[in-house]
């Protein structure tokens, strides 16, 4: 029987994944694996994955067949920075949640982006703390009922991609999980045309168990809803404030190819050592 293209990048012995049935984390995995396949990456020997704590942090470890570091909640980026500085030849990818990367680890994210640190960071924005049963996160929509906001969320969500676009990061994009082909192509770009500096991809993918099911929808119904709700940034900008709240702005927010931190740092070290 024909085999799924993703299986060669997975540790088959630990499948199926521990994710809930329908969890969109698995769709991001397909897009990532298809990007690897189309780039001709046969195995992941030159890659290291780093994650923190949360459902999305489980994507690399234990499932992806590559070296990985499953670190503390929020601390994936500083550990990944250390890995990259210790061996700049490695491709270092961080995969984590909105809670992990934008809440407890928010300052690490901001400053790695400011440094234009040579990392690819993929943030699954599932709108909640999925692993601990769906509490509100900094990305939870206004009004959403969660165990920590029983009368609805009084706060408004932070726009993580726009914030990171305001730093020195080279590449910033946001895609909905329903935009499989652009998401896959964006991951490819962030590993090829834009292979240095800080690259950030936000993946809007509501938690199937604590957001989608709570809305009384099936994961398939929600995917079809997202196909309408997610629009390109240019379209979103032309909308009224009320319309904007009902849609998700997606696309490439920024794409530059400035030297990353590693290159700049090496230059300074060479100067300090008197090499020309």
């Amino acid at each position: 029987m024909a085999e799924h293209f993703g299986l060669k990048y997975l540790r088959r012995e630990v499948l199926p994944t521990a994710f809930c049935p329908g969890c969109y984390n698995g769709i991001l995995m397909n897009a990532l694996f298809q990007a690897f396949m189309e780039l001709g990456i046969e195995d992941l020997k030159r890659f290291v994955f780093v994650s923190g704590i949360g459902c999305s942090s489980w994507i690399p470890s234990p499932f992806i067949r590559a070296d990985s570091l499953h670190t503390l909640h929020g601390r994936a980026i500083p550990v990944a920075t250390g890995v990259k500085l210790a061996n700049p030849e490695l491709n270092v990818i961080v995969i984590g949640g909105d809670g992990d990367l934008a809440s407890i680890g928010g300052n690490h994210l901001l400053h790695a982006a400011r440094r234009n640190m040579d990392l690819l960071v993929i943030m699954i924005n599932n709108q909640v703390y999925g692993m601990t049963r769906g509490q509100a996160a900094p990305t939870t929509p206004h009004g959403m009922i969660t165990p920590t906001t029983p009368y609805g969320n009084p706060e408004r969500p932070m726009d993580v991609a726009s914030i990171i676009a305001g730093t020195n990061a080279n590449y910033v994009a946001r895609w909905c999980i329903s935009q499989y082909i652009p998401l896959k192509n964006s991951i490819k770009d962030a590993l090829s045309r834009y292979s240095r500096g800080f690259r950030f991809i936000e993946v809007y993918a509501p938690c199937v168990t604590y957001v989608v099911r709570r809305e009384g929808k099936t994961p398939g119904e929600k995917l079809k809803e997202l196909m309408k709700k997610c629009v390109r940034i240019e379209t979103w900008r032309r909308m009224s404030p009320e319309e904007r709240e009902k849609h998700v702005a997606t696309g490439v927010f920024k794409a530059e190819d400035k030297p990353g931190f590693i290159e700049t740092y090496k230059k300074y070290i060479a100067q300090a050592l008197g090499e020309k």
Partner: protein
Amino acid sequence: MAHYKVFINKKLCKGCGICIEICPRNALRFNGINPETGYRNPEQVGECIGCRQCMWYCPDQAVVVVGEQ
């Protein structure tokens, strides 16, 4: 005209129904419960146009679409 066949890996499928709901041709349906996993597994019941959306959007790498010329 090309013919396409859809294969479901019953060890990986968690019966979420995404493939069935996403298919533009209604080519897939649930068929009973898999006693080994306790989940419902889909099977192909109609003509497939090979768009591969079921394969992309299956979160458990359980769908393979094969084209036969």
